[in-house]
């Protein structure tokens, strides 16, 4: 019954903390259903039983019943106080991280998530964590407020500029979990998505060493198409020619690009590479210099793949 209801009401449980939140959620759900049925039931009964039968209906003078009023005040009051303490208890579990948690730095900016691991490696929109190990995220934003939300973990925390906020979790379900930005942050807010990969210790350590073998067997352009989405390029650039926060990729390769300073430049492989790694070097006319640098965040093959992908957008 609970599993069936959960499949309708809630996402899967990716942490044991999610299980304790769900217990409370289901208590609230059943209590809500009970009180709704009580109110709707009484209402329906009264509407039928006491419907007007004629203009001569007699109605009684009943304006108070102190016993009843005390009862229907005290029962809800004790219930909500009970719920408060339960909610507070589970909330504190999430608020205090264990001392041995592994720390990962999270930087949010319009509209990507950047992760930096203890060994200095960085990744974009993809967080890799070991299974059954407590992980603590130390988060900050480079621009506006974002919010780190993982529904399957039942955790959420606003990410603020100029302040650190934190979150922790111990993932118990291997596989992919979705990360959403839950605080409205502008045009591509709903595309500021990430994926959390929960791996066993060995796979996780391998990934840390090699950066994973994602796209190993893919042709460059196909790998680039994947990165275009997973690294968040699509939050500002389109491939269908429509204008985004940044220029569309369609037809850009091989064209003469007009720059802000009035000069033009041929969009060849080196121009595209430079625009990814040092975007402030040449600003396209009519656009704001808002693109962050991707220097140090992409591996060589990933850069090659993106260049190849952009070349293919004729």
């Amino acid at each position, binding site marked *: 019954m609970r599993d069936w209801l959960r499949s309708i009401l809630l996402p899967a449980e990716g942490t044991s903390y999610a299980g304790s939140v769900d217990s409370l959620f289901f208590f609230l759900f059943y209590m809500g259903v009970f009180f709704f049925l009580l109110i709707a039931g009484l209402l329906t009964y009264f509407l039928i039983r006491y419907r007007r039968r004629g203009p001569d209906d007699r109605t*009684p003078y009943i304006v108070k019943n102190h016993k009843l009023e005390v009862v229907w005040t005290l029962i809800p009051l004790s219930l909500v106080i009970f719920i408060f303490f339960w909610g507070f208890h589970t909330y504190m579990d999430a608020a205090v991280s264990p001392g041995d948690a592994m720390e990962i730095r999270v930087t949010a900016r319009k509209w990507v998530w950047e992760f930096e691991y203890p060994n200095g490696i960085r990744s974009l929109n993809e967080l890799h964590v070991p299974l059954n190990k407590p992980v603590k995220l130390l988060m900050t934003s480079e621009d506006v407020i974002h919010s780190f939300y993982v529904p399957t973990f039942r955790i959420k925390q606003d990410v603020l500029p100029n302040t650190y906020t934190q979150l922790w979790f111990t993932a118990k379900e291997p596989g992919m979990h979705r990360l959403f930005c839950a605080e409205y942050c502008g045009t591509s807010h709903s595309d500021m998505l990430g994926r959390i990969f929960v791996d066993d210790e060995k796979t996780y350590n391998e990934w840390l060493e090699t950066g994973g073998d994602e796209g190993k067997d893919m042709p460059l352009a196909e790998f680039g198409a994947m990165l275009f989405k997973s690294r968040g390029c699509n939050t500002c650039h389109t491939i269908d020619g429509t204008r985004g926060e940044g220029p569309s990729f369609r037809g850009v390769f091989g064209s003469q690009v007009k720059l802000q300073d009035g000069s033009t430049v041929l969009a060849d492989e080196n121009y595209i590479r430079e625009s990814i790694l040092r975007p402030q070097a040449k600003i396209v006319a009519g656009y704001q210099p808002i693109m962050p640098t991707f220097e140090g965040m992409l591996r060589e093959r990933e850069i090659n793949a993106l260049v190849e992908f952009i070349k293919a957008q004729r």
Partner: protein
Amino acid sequence: MADVMALKPGVGGQAAPNYLTASRGLKSWLFTLDHKRIGVMYLASVLAAFLIGGVFAMLIRMELLTPGPTLMSAEAYNKAFTLHGVVMIFLFIIPSIPAALGNFALPLMLGAKDVAFPRLNLASYWLYLAGALMGVVAMVSGGIDTGWTFYTPYSSSTGGAVSLMTLAAFVLGFSSIFTGINFIATIHKLRAPGMTWFRMPLFAWSMYATAIIQILATPVIGITLLLLVMERVFNVGIFDPKLGGDPVLFQHFFWFYSHPAVYIMILPGMAVISEVIPCFSKKPIFGYKAVAYSSVAIALVSFLVWGHHMYVSGQTPVASAIFSFLTFLVAIPSAVKVFNWLATMYRGSISFQAPMLYAIAFLLLFAIGGLTGIVLGTLSVDVHLHDTYFVVAHFHYVMMGGTVIAFLAGLHYWWPKMFGRMYSEKWARISAALVFVGFNLTFFAQFLVGSRGMPRRYYNYLEEFQPLHIVSTVGSWVLAAGFFLMAGYLYASLRKPIDAPANPWGATGLEWQTSSPPSVHNFDHVPVVTTEAYAYATETEETTVGAR
């Protein structure tokens, strides 16, 4: 309003002039000091705002029919949901019951000739018009994409007409404050002889509680929005960390007003329901004092719960815990009211005219809104649900299922008094059914989208959420059909000659003792009150069997 002015006096033009026909011309309306005319002008204005806000709502639902682009760009979508929120909250819901229905009905219900400060009342309406005009200019000159919450530093850095729109909200705030001042003074000073505090209709108690919040909380949003404008225009660092400010401070300031403001919106709804249920059950309200005091209790505690919007904002866990506890306390007076309304129906003689249908819908929808409010007040569960569609569904159940449905109950209840015309009961029932079904289709689906983890303010969404979004969008069409039908039969009623009796519902309030529509001066003789409100019972305390 042109139609209202064209209203003809009764059959053969022989009826004595009423407040609608006593004088003619645009000037006689725009410079009127008559609370009834100001109420009617407010009514026309808030209905226009409801139409604009509703068009934005329909656009939002159309866009969300499919993931990815459906009919507009992400920028346009972000502007649409912002304008939907701003228009519905500042131009429609806040003035809907107090300034439109309340302005018309409250002085009549108290047996007064007008509100205490008629000129202030007119000034309030002009400020409303000025604010609305600024809002419209802001809409067409670039619009805004901040969300109705104007969170910094997004709002201090994004483009568009943010400064103008916040100034519009600032001006509208004063319009709301003026109404509040007027109602408090009117209730204190202008009650008819014999109408003691505990003989007042509960509508007046709720309006009084609403006015307290309007006067005490609205200045805070005014100051906050001015600070935001100063930051945007003069680069004074208050909220933007780039200028040395604190973005979370804005959230504290904003919710210090905007949470009490939720009660500015719902208390008047409760006020209407407390009138309608006794009237159509032919029974005195159960627990008069409990209902009256619970309004005041809600008003006072509502100032101390703002932090429940900020459990994940970075405020300390201690603060979150205190706010959660106080939030649960505010649930109790609301629950007590629901039980009182139900008990009022017990052993009544219940009829099902349009106002009562809306009151019944209110009870069901407000129950769902209230119970899901308990879910959201719970700390750990809210962390999961915060900023998801669950919250969107919850506040629409409270604000639309609660306040707007109560506004419709009140509109149908006082319509004959306001315009002297009965509307088609048959079409009113069909429309009420469409609104009820459409509402639940639209918003119940959103509870599920939200608890499954879809954040709000999303232009694009995962495909797994699409079936529920389709249900929601189709629901919005049913809802719109209900409203268009309503506009049709209400308009049709205005085209007829005056046909409403003074007291079509057999109600006991003083407003029903004067003609429909009332004369300019409301009453020919000052009414004298000798009984408590809601003297509907045919039996007395002594003859009632089983009263205790």
